[in-house]
């Protein structure tokens, strides 16, 4: 009864004079939105840094066919990311990262279907779609682990690099990349690869953990007792955001 009185008294005031939600969403969802906004700033900063460093390095001028790795210019991404598991020595530019993109988009779709099932209080369907989402996330992380491993260990030929080793300048054949040396191009290219895809991968990992916690709660019936599945919506927002960030990483790191 007391809650009814609050609604009546506030209805006289404006939208922002209290007693109602001006944004027509719950506190938890609103705060998730603002957290995602702040996270979007973080990822924007990383991707803009990529743009700044890329433009402060010379671009490759020749034809794509004649391209070879060099410390002198920024590499063409599709020449770097052209390996696919089990197809050793086959040049398949961007195929593997394309598969990863489709996995993440599909897991986003299954998340929407879980949210939709939650609206209908259909616990069995929420369980099914949450499980597919978690599997998609794990598959994506597995792909990323392979890609990192390949990037770190490098190609069979490697590149000839002149560097400072134990205080002396030496010219060696270097394979793969780390934070200070990189066979594919200028060292910041590898550093940015590790930071941007690593930060995104950390988000996917925490998304999988959060999805699993919510999945567990669904299975034990927490949200049936609560009477609504809003937690699935909140974790869904986070998961879609992770997919959204990948859409931008895919374009700015791999395509352009």
């Amino acid at each position, binding site marked *: 009864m007391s809650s009814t009185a609050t609604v009546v008294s506030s209805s006289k005031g404006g939208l922002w004079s209290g007693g109602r939600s*001006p*944004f*027509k*969403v719950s506190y938890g969802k*609103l705060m998730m*939105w603002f957290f*995602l*906004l702040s996270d*979007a*700033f973080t990822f*924007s*900063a990383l991707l*803009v*840094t990529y*743009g*700044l*460093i*890329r*433009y*402060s*390095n*010379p671009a490759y001028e020749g034809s*794509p066919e004649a391209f070879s790795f060099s410390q002198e210019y920024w590499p*063409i991404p*599709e020449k770097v990311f052209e390996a696919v598991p089990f197809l050793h020595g086959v040049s398949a*530019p*961007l195929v593997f990262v*394309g598969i990863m*993109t*489709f996995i993440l*988009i*599909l897991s*986003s*779709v299954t*998340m*929407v*279907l879980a949210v*939709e*099932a939650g*609206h*209908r*209080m*259909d*616990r069995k*369907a929420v369980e099914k779609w949450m499980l597919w989402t978690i599997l998609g996330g794990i598959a994506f992380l597995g792909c990323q682990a392979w890609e990192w491993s390949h990037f770190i260990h490098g190609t069979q030929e490697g590149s000839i690099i002149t560097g400072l080793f134990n205080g002396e300048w030496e010219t060696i054949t270097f394979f793969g990349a780390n934070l200070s040396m990189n066979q594919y191009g200028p060292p910041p290219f590898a550093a940015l690869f590790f930071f941007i895809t690593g930060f995104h991968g950390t988000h996917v990992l925490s998304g999988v953990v959060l999805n699993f916690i919510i999945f567990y709660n669904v299975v034990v019936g927490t949200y*049936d*007792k609560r*009477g609504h599945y809003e937690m699935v919506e909140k974790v*869904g*927002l986070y998961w*879609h*955001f992770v*997919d*959204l960030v990948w*859409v*931008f990483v895919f*374009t700015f790191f791999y*395509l*352009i």
Partner: protein
Amino acid sequence: MQSEETNNIIVQPADRKKIMGIWKVAGILAVVTAIEFGFAFGMGAGATRTTIFIALTIVKAYYIVSEFMHLGHEVKSLIWSIIGPMLFVVWLIAVLIYEGGAILLVR
């Protein structure tokens, strides 16, 4: 009695139209990604291709945020509270890309 009441959940039937809508958005995202691949292999690198990629990325971002994250169906003030601050990023991109070109010149 109380516990029996909470355990008696009424499951509503699935709305086929709504689910078809979700898969339609998924199809759009997949097709746009396929088009991006087409441009990646069928067109030489340059300002035009970069512009196409950015435009297609914004199309995908629009569908994810508006439909999957449901922002398109929220009230206008919430939509602008989220989209508005992102305008700062547009400025950051413009100014730092310009700065990157300037660093290259003095290198």
